[in-house]
């Protein structure tokens, strides 16, 4: 019940996909199944939101898909690369070259300027950033006059915009956002979400975002719902109201069931 539901979106290719992804924490009495045979594909040029109640496994799904965490079983592919076969070094390289991150806590390096933070993944790789692309990304997030500032001199919204620019600057195959608006007020959050959506629309970027906020999910092209480590529902072209309704019905379903 995954890809077929979305007919309106031109299905160009798959940026990342999981097959029967299972993640188990602990053993014996403390055994917790965070993900239970989850199969999902993230198409290129699409903005996907992953939703679900706390502890449903949505963050774990994202961490596994992004190569931050290793699955207990099942497969994760980014493009055509099977992550299960990669060692730490290759995984690190994959994250550096093909994946962008936007964290809830921004995670900018306080000792570097905004520009240095944006180019950090490329500096780590030892590559020169593509000047024209960098300018485009920077101007899109509206940071042109803030590039010399340190994170401590920027507001939360500005810091997260730097983080978005950092995620986009190296032209990754896919950008993952982990509650990117969780630490922001609604206005700054709306800005950041706008940029993420623009990056999909204008730059053709693929974005996957974990969120618990129906308003944030409304920016996405598609929303998938997780509950107790399983994929339970999916919605195309969501609006905050529809997402909220679905969440309510899912909530009552899980309570009654």
């Amino acid at each position, binding site marked *: 019940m995954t890809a077929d539901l979305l007919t309106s979106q031109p299905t160009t290719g798959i940026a990342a996909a999981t097959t029967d992804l299972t993640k188990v924490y602990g053993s014996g009495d403390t055994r917790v199944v965070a993900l239970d045979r989850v199969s999902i594909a993230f198409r290129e040029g699409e903005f996907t939101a992953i939703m679900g109640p706390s502890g449903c496994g949505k*963050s774990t799904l994202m*961490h596994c898909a992004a190569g*931050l*965490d290793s699955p207990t079983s099942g497969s994760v592919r980014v493009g055509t690369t099977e992550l299960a076969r990669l060692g*730490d*070094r290759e995984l*690190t*390289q994959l*994250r*550096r*070259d093909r994946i962008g*991150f936007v*964290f*809830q*806590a921004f*995670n900018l*390096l*306080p*000792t*570097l300027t905004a520009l*240095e933070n944006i180019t*950090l*993944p490329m*500096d*780590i*790789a*030892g590559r020169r950033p593509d000047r024209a692309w960098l300018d485009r990304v920077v101007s899109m997030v509206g940071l042109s006059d803030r590039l010399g500032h340190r994170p*401590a001199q920027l507001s939360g919204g500005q810091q997260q915009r730097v983080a978005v620019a*950092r995620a986009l600057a190296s032209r990754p195959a896919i950008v993952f956002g*982990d509650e990117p608006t969780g630490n922001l007020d609604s206005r700054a959050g709306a800005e950041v979400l706008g940029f993420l959506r623009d990056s999909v629309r204008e730059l053709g970027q693929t974005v996957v975002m974990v969120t618990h906020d129906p308003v944030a999910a409304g920016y996405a092209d598609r929303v998938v719902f997780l509950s107790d480590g399983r994929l339970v529902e999916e919605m195309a072209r969501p609006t905050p109201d529809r997402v909220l309704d679905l969440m309510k019905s899912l909530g009552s379903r899980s309570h009654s069931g």
Partner: protein
Amino acid sequence: MLRTALRNLLAHKARLAMTVLAVCLGVAFVSGTLVFADSTAAAHRAAASKTFAGIDVTVTDKAPEPGPDDGSRAGVLDDALVTELTRVPGVAAVRPSVDGSATLNAADGSPLRADRAWSHLAGAYVPGKDGKDSRYPLTEGRAPANGGEIAVDRGTASAGGFRIGDTVTLATDGPVTTKRLVGIVSTDDARVTAGGTLALFDKTTAQKLFSAPGHYTGIDLTAAPGTTASELADRVTAVLPADHAEATTGQAQAAQQAILVDTLTRGYEKVPMVFAGVSLFIGSFLIVNTFTMLVKRRTRETALLRAIGASRRQVSRSVLLEALVVGLSASVAGFLLGLGIAAMLPHVLGGGDSALPTGPLVIGPRSVAAALGVGVGVTVLAAWLPSRLAARTSPMEAMRTAEQPPPAQRFRLRGAVGVGLLVLGAGRLVSLSGAKDASEENLRDAMIGCGLFAAALIMLAPLLAAPVIRLTGRLTGRLGVTGRLARENALRDPRRTAATAATLLISTGLVTGLAVIGHSTGQALDRQAATGLGADYVVSTRSTMTGIDPGAVRRLADTPGVRTAHPITDSTLFTGSGVRQISGADPATVRDTMKLDFVSGSAEDLAAGRIAISTTLAREHGVTTGGLLNVRLGHAGKLTAYKVVGVYKNNPVAHDALGSRGEVAANSFLPGSVQRVLLRTDGPPTAALENRLRTAVGNNPLLTVQNRDQLVREAAGTMGDLLDVMYGMLGIGVVISALGIVNTLAMSVAERTREIGALRALGMDRAGIRRMIRLEALTVTGFGTLLGLAGGLFAAWAVGSLANGAIDQYTLVLPWGTLLLVCLLSLAIGVLAAAVPARRAAALSPLEAAANA
């Protein structure tokens, strides 16, 4: 969460353990040294009382000056007195002795235990009624029976490689003689067992050598049961000729000897005490740093305590209490380690030859008190500042969210105080560069100056961190983003960086200063020894108490290949203000054998009543050529006004003053004696010539034959000890610095888990993270090393001017090799210390970035 809490606790424990270790090291040196001192003193006492075990009272000549007074030397201790004493009621046994000293040549021809001139004992084998000497039980062979035979003790025999039947070369004071070894005895005499030698002659020979025929140097009495030593002493005193002999109890002698031996073997404590001081001083920085970090880390916790009503005093007290516990456990651990050091020291210091007496470890209250006082005191004092910091925590901190950037640090007050200290310290040091001599006042000034200067550097270090690290950062910055991040991380908390670097700053500074001064002084002494000496060979006695016999002087002059032989008599010169050394020379040949650089006058006018003096002496007394100087020569009765005929630049060969040999010799310790013979040879020195010279003096163990190179090496030899101390200090400094670096880096890694996680998530591999931490360590150590190097060089330059006054030809010479070694060692230790924190950082999961605070 539980995992992180556990990990924090572990990290915490490790950090405290490292602090404990630093204090522990210092305490170990202090207590180890004290226990060692107590133990050796006790061992000396035990050994001394063993020496005098069978002796209750000893009768000696009154005021037994070993002076040259002929005739009276015989004294009153003769066979008649021995017989008389036997009849004193309460006397069980009488043993007369004839004691002196004799230096032996080992089987290989070198003087045996030459560095222990004070314990080259010699005596008579005095058989008792049973034909055996109870004091020296024979273990092998037989007793010496005539003037051609000797016996030695077991230690001497094994050290010298002697066997029964060997011919042994020895000298008592004058010429050399050879004897046949016929017996080996054992002895309990502490002076011998503590690394001396013993030679026994038959009674007649000993009397000929050390007193006069038929006379003794002492008579030992053993009391009969029921008579105490003091009773016996009283009775004996009554029989003795009042003004000529006296009786002393064995106990008193033992106490005296213990003190003597103890003082002679002293001085061992100094080096370990210096180590203790350095390690505690450097360690205190580590303590301050660790507690500051702990307090900062617990800000929220402390704020919560304050919010629910804990007073400032309670907060600071809890920190001090923690310091007390740390100090206490460090002291206990240090004390135990110190016992190990004390047990090991005799082996380290004693070496193979000069065995220190061994005995049980004596743990006196002084050692325990010092260990506890030093360990706890230093820790609590060092924790005082951090405790104040904790007390200042506002309850509001508890409400703040996690990732607050540290408030910008203000250094205005610190800067002002630091600059003030710098001006004071540097000013004092610079003012010294005008000083002309190493007077006590100037030395004290130098010490104070160095102290102030060091304090200023430590105060200013946080301010200097930014500019210096930016500069060194240009280097590390070339290594890409890891280098840049390392630099920025080191700059993040300049105070912490500075405190971590302070330990290295001190040790590098100390070692640099010492190395430069030591090296420069050594070179100056070398040059001085080389330039002051015109002679190719110097034959000299090992002490001023002995002379070179006239026969040997004649034979030296007659040795083929010797052009000039210039005998010199060394004596003392009492000026109004102190005791100096004067050399009695022959004006005709002095030019040939000493390279004297006269500022005014010359040596040619030396005669009775005329002397030449060194520039230092001239300056001290404000005399110049043509002036008069009131001095007393050697044993001369009174001060006499001498005419100064010349002033020469300080010369180690000529000593402080030159007189005519006849006059100096007439008043010297052994009238008419010669202490040195300076030789000019026809050609370059050869091994054959050296052999001929040794033969000319009969291989006398009391004499040394040295060529120029050996003399120069000897002059610089004193610098060797300094070098050892220096490397020891560097070692301690480096170990403690390493602890500090591990501590600080572990802390900064713990504080930055999220950041490091983000770097991992963004694609920095483990090697990159490790490199970043290592470079950070390198930056911090580089900063400390650079500052220490600069400070040490400056201080060495300033203090060197004191040496310049005292030693001619002193110029600042940089020991490049040593300095390079110091730098490399410091930097290497930084990288090494970073290993564990770097590994821990690299093991962090990229998921840390996603973790919620």
